[in-house]
Every structure is written in C-alpha cells, then in structure tokens.
C-alpha cells in the first residue's frame, strides 16, 4: 500500500480528511495545498489513493485528475467538494474521478466511504 495524497488549499479540510483516514487505519499520508504541489508529490512518491478538493489555486482538482490519468495511472481519486450540480459531478467522473463527496458531510459518512480503500 502506498501513501494517501491529501490535496486541499484549506488546511482545515486537510486536517479533517487526514483524521478520517487515520481513523480507518490509513496513516501513511502526504499533504499538498494545490494541484501543482500534488502533481509533484504524485510523481515523486508511490501514491495509492488521492483525496482532492476541486477549487484550488494554481491547478484545480479536476486538472490534477486529468494529469494523473494522462500518465496511465488507475489509482482511485476521491474528490471532496462543494460542487454539487449534476453536470459538474458527471464532468468529474468523465475525467477520471472515482468517488465523490459533497460538502458538508459528517465524519461518519467520510469514514464509511474510506473503509473500502482501507480494506483494499
């Protein structure tokens, strides 16, 4: 199992996501504050799961997803965002996002969604 890459320009959201990952046993995490930092971290490390926001400075979570998929990588990419319109969700999935969670969410819901990655 490689590292989990947590990407969000909000330090608060990164802490919430890392806490949920730790609670399901995924403790080997890396953090990035935008898509540019995240892509560099992805290229330099063995990453097995990406948890990303959509709206970020420099490079969005959607563009990060496209860049990761363009390398041929099939790792799960989990997007956590306030973008809740159906067409935006479809756009994300078409471009390679494998799981999607809309804000706000409870810690329980996030952990429930993360369980499958912990088991895998």
């Amino acid at each position, binding site marked *: 199992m490689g590292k989990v890459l947590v990407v969000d320009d909000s330090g608060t959201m990164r802490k919430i996501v890392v806490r949920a990952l730790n609670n399901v046993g995924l403790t080997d995490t890396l953090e990035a504050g935008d898509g540019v930092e995240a892509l560099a971290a992805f290229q330099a490390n063995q990453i097995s799961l990406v948890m990303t926001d959509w709206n970020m400075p420099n490079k969005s979570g959607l563009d990060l997803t496209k860049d990761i998929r363009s390398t041929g990588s099939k790792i799960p990419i989990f997007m956590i965002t306030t973008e809740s*319109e159906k067409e935006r969700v479809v756009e994300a999935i078409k471009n390679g996002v494998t799981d999607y969670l809309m804000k706000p969410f409870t810690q329980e819901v996030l952990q429930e969604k993360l369980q499958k990655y912990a088991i895998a």
Partner: protein
Amino acid sequence: MATTYVSEIEQIVQMIFSTMLSMEVQCAESSSADSHRFLGTIHVTGDNPVSLVLSMSGEMARAASAHMLGMNVNEVSEEDQQDVVAELTNMIGGNLKSLIPGTHFLSLPTVVEGKELDLQIPGATLTDDVPMEGVDGTFRIRLFVK
C-alpha cells in the same frame, strides 16, 4: 426585483454547522457586522452573479474552529480561525451556487481580520442580510447581487 435567498441561506448554514461542526445555530434578531472580527468573501460568477460575505465574531470563529478541527478552544490558532472562516464561506457559497438558476463558477474564498470591517462591492446591491447566532457568538451572511 431581485430573487432573495434568506430561507435557503439559513437552511444551508444550519446544515453545515450541524453536520461538520456539530453546532446548532439559528437566525438572530440582529447582529452588527461592525463587531465582527473576520470577514469572508466569495464570488459566484456566471449567468446570475452574486457575492456572499460572511462576517463572524472572534468568539464564534474560535468555537467553530475548535468544533471543526476537534480541538480545545485554547488550542485554536489565528491561522486556524482564518482558515475555518474561509472554508465556511466556501461551503455556504458553493451550496448556494447550486440553487441559482444558470451556469456558474465559484471563486476562491478570501478572509480579512480586523476591527470595524466593512466591504464595498461596486455595482452590487445588498439583497439578503441574515444575522445568525449560536451559544458561542454571532455571525452574519450578506448576499450582494450584481
């Protein structure tokens, strides 16, 4: 006449505070933004552009940060409070965006901290002013339509 979103804003804010912070908040009689220490702003651009401003007292920002981060109030830093106000502004704006007819994009949130803060949005009209409160303090959401 511009569409107003007062009840939608109230519902969105209550949902966010309830699910992500385990805090109960409700509409208040009034709340002066002048006494608020943090001012978060986010813009929705597109067919029907709006700007949303969240102003919040220092006490409320500290309590919200503690709840959101699972920390004690005395462990919360200034940076934590600014970041939490930004994230709350982002979530309120993002959820409101989905209710506005048309195609829209959400800006990144910005936060300023200070005393007697006010914000002018040239060419925009204040359409909704929603004062709210919890046991820890007050906050206020204002919506400007361009």
